[in-house]
Every structure is written in C-alpha cells, then in structure tokens.
C-alpha cells in the first residue's frame, strides 16, 4: 500500500494501477480538515494588559468574533487551538507562558495581539520580553497599541487563510526542523 501517502494520486486506481483504491480520499481529507479547523478555532486567552479591552470588544456583539467560528474561549489550554497572547509579557511571566503553550494540544497556533506581545512595544527595559517569539513560536502578529477590533479580525482572517491553505504552523515547522536535526545528528 505504498501509494497511501502519494498526495498527487488522484481518483480511484485504474485496473493494475499503482495507487490504491480510493486514494483520492486521503487527498481530499487534508483540505477538509483544514476547512473544519479554520472555522472552529477554540482559543485560550493569555491576557495581561491594556490590549484586553480591545480583545473584549472584538469578542462582543459589535464585532462579533463568533462569525468566524472563534467565539469559544477555553479555560484549559488542553482544549484550545489558538493561543492569544494579549498584552505585555514580562520576564516573570515567561515560565507560565511557555508551560501553557506546551500544554496545548496539536496542531496549535499562536497570535501575538498588540505591539507589546509582538515586539515588546515601548517597554524596552529590564522587565519586558521583546516579543513573545523569544519564548514560543508565533504565527500571526497584530500591530497596534492597542489594535482596533478590525485589525484583530484581520489577523484572525489571516490565520484562517493560513490554516485553509494547509500551511504548517510555526509549531509544526519547529518540530520538523528538530526532527531533521536529530536525523542528521544520527
């Protein structure tokens, strides 16, 4: 059954052909999963600072994140797909942030909400992490101090498009890089 992973195989195999019967089922499953994932993002909100205000308004009826299938916050990272990091992250919060990220089930995506979470904002000092990608891999960066809800929805749509295209999340890229490095090492 060597043909199962052959993504280019299309349609049922002809008599004596290489691809297994119903090989196209696997071809179509990935876009189907991507479509399902993109419209049912469960989120975990790591909310620390003033950006939370805009996050709340994005969640509420005016901008209504529910339209994008992303309205349900999970209070356990184990049930979440998207980690929203909203607000300033100080070095003291580094260990809990890393831990929460590690607890999330795969596949997982991370959104840096606001300038502080993206690059540290104007807090270029002893206390603030200069962007959460210094701690965890991050998929989408939403600029603004704080970003307007329209920008947040834009970020969410970018994430949906990324998932819909079947692109790897930064977490998966990282895993693959690690696996490749381990293979090289031996």
């Amino acid at each position: 059954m060597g043909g199962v992973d052959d993504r280019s195989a299309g349609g049922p195999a002809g008599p004596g052909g290489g691809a297994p019967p119903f090989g196209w089922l696997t071809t179509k499953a990935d876009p189907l999963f991507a479509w399902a994932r993109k419209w049912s993002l469960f989120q975990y909100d790591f909310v620390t600072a003033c950006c939370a205000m805009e996050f709340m308004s994005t969640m509420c009826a005016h901008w209504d994140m529910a339209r994008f299938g992303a309205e349900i916050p999970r209070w356990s990272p184990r049930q979440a797909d998207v980690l929203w990091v909203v607000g300033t992250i100080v070095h003291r919060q580094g260990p809990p942030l890393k831990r929460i990220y590690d607890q999330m089930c795969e596949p997982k995506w991370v959104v840096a909400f606001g300038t502080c979470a993206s690059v540290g904002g104007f807090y270029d000092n002893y206390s603030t992490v200069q962007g959460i990608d210094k701690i965890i891999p991050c998929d989408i960066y939403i600029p603004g101090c704080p970003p307007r809800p329209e920008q947040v929805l834009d970020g969410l749509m970018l994430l949906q498009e990324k998932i819909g295209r079947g692109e790897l999340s930064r977490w998966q890229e990282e895993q693959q890089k690690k696996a490749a490095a381990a293979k090289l090492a031996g």
Partner: protein
Amino acid sequence: MSQRLVDLVKSRFPQGVLESHDFRGDDTVVVRREDYLEVVRFLKDSPGTAMDFFVDLTCVDWPERKPRFDVVLHLKSFGSGERLRVKTGVPEDDCTCPSLTGLWPAANWFEREAYDMYGVRFSGHPDLRRILLYEEFEGHPLRKDYPKEKRQPLVPMRDDAPPQPPPFPERPH
C-alpha cells in the same frame, strides 16, 4: 500651604531638620535619617499635626551625590487636608532606613517596592522581599548604574528570527 507643619517639626526637632522648601505650595522637610522615624511618628500622632494618611513612599537615586539615595514620603491629613513631603538621605555604603510598618501597615508593600527597585533595606520591616521582580533577579533595576540593556530572562530566549512574511495576500473587499 503647610508652612505651619514645617515650623512645628522644626521647633520640635531643631537638630533633625536639615532643610525645608516649598514648591508651589508643596512643602518638603528634609530630615536626618536618625530622626526620620521620630519625625514621622510626631507628624502622625500629635494632635496638632495628625497626618494620618500615608499617601506614598518611594525612592530617588542621585548617583553623583552623597548620600546617594533619598527616601521620599508623602503624608496627608484627613482632618485638615494638609499635605507634607518628608525626605531623608540614605548613603550607599549603609543602605538602610527605618521602616514605617509599625506606624502604617500599608507601608509594607511600598517599602518592599523601594527595596526591590533601589536596594534600600528598611530596618524593622517584617517581610522584606522583592515584590515585583522575581527572586532570581540580580541587582536593583531603577538604580542609575543598572545597565540599560541588561535582561535576566527566566526561560531561555529563542533567537531564530521569524521567517519573512509572505507578500500580503490580495483579498476581495
């Protein structure tokens, strides 16, 4: 505005008051560290002053000056509405100052913050630990000689830059 208070303190502690000044109605007395606790106790408890509200306590670093640090205390009286600022100098080599936690329990966290940021030790404080930073942090970041670029992360920092973003996707509006 509260010149009356300054005069009262001066007459009660003629040796203890080093200086006093007034900036747009805000009066300040600078007192010796040895008399700091007694001055504050006098301001709080004597009926003529009754500065019963502990507003703020903080610290200032003057790297070129001796003594290097100022502990700055702001007081207010609920009865008369008067305000007074009390300052005392703390030298770097003996970086201690009497604690006010015996007078106002609220001073506890303010003094912990001043200790955390400037390293002034408050003698008589029941629980002098860092309050905002973590135990692993070395040094006191609001001292002027703390290196501006120095970071003390608790988890290892990743330094792989994120990949260049793809060109902005065209979307129908």
